[in-house]
């Protein structure tokens, strides 16, 4: 059994630096900073309690995220009001219709979407169903690998690929709408 102070020092060095990432993820999952505060705090308390079980040299950030997920599932998911679900079929229809008939697909120009605000992108991510939101955040914001995401969501890597593909389609549809509303999209 390791000395408490040593455990604490190790924990401070390895786990505490990931707090910003955990808070961001928590905030996107629960949508409220007070709940995100509580979720992150509970996660860290649990993590410290089990710190001697953490396998040194493995991915500490992924380990913390898993604890956060379990905490979230046990305590927060039921309380959290799910944002409006996206009808995937509707998305597919929109996506297909939005596809260009020629190769001049101007609406794919990066500059159009660069005009979007961070808040608009956050809003679009928040509107995704939880399963899809999770993979987008973990992949595109937190930079986890497919294997780490698969481990996090307890699914095969193929499911990660599939969800990510669909999640990005949904997001693109949302963002395209935002851009159109603001008059940025050139055509459909």
């Amino acid at each position: 059994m390791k000395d408490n102070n040593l455990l604490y020092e190790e924990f401070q060095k390895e786990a505490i630096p990931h707090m910003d990432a955990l808070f961001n993820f928590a905030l996107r999952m629960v949508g409220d900073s007070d709940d995100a505060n509580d979720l992150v705090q509970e996660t860290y308390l649990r993590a410290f309690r089990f710190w001697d079980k953490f396998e040194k040299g493995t991915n500490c950030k992924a380990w913390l995220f898993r604890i956060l997920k379990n905490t979230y599932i046990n305590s927060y998911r039921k309380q959290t009001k799910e944002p409006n679900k996206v009808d995937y079929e509707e998305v597919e229809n929109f996506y297909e219709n939005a596809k260009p008939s020629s190769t001049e697909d101007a609406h794919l120009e990066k500059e159009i979407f660069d005009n979007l605000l961070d808040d608009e992108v956050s809003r679009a991510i928040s509107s995704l169903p939880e399963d899809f939101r999770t993979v987008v955040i973990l992949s595109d914001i937190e930079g986890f690998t497919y294997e780490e995401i698969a481990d996090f969501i307890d699914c095969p890597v193929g499911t990660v690929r599939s969800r990510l593909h669909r999640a990005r389609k949904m997001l693109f549809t949302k963002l395209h709408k935002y851009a159109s509303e603001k008059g940025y999209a050139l055509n459909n």
Partner: protein
Amino acid sequence: MEERKVNELITALVDDELPEVEDRELVLSLLNENPHYSYNYRVQLLTKNIVTNHKNFVPAPEKLKRKIIRNIKPGIPVYKKIFGNLVDSNPPVYAFAVVAIILVGSLFLFTTLMNTDQSHVEKRNNFFITAKNNFYSILDGKINPDIVTNQPEILKSFFIEHGVEYNTPIPCFKDWILVGGVVSTSNGEKYAHMLYSNSDGKIIYVFQVCEHYLNNSNSLFVTDELKQTIQTAKYFCEKNEKATTYLTKHQGNLFAIVTNDGKHNAENLLAELN
């Protein structure tokens, strides 16, 4: 290969998650041949880039970080461990301090930082009692100082650099060596603490706060009774078997001085302070 499967592989290509050469080659050739797949690839890539570039990253609030750290190890705030560096670079100057510190165990636990319950955090602490409790925690060897120095000017600068907003005269006590100090934070307010040691390994702990600052503090207070006593008798002293605690005023600051040196008498100590 069915379309759904190809689309998933396209996503994997965007994320550089296609380790198999065959898969990669297959997808690349489909992208070249089929505008529909090519379009999907660009949508995936564009969407990924948008999300990555518009992260809207909100860092964890400092208050939350402090709270978590306090809760994990109550009584040990996050302090840089500069103690070792100073000793290594200046062995003759700090040797005495090191011995003293080893003897007494290490220091400084601030009860103002100890409360883990939010409802307690909002309450103000009695300055006198806080000083005593801090001292007992010092005796328990709970924590290292923020800075180890026997140079009053260095310590003074350290307090300023770390956000202490009031003047901090550093007293010199005959036969005692300044060991170092700590800046504590409570309800966003920064407080200065000093530590001295003597050749017997006894310690003097000084907690000082500007009187005006204390009167407007959200985290500390002094009772009217004690204020009155200091006004009339110049100091207040309380002895118990563990320590002697003095409360006095010096250069506009209230000083709580706590020591486990039974030989010291109040008159000498306070005369040296003045």
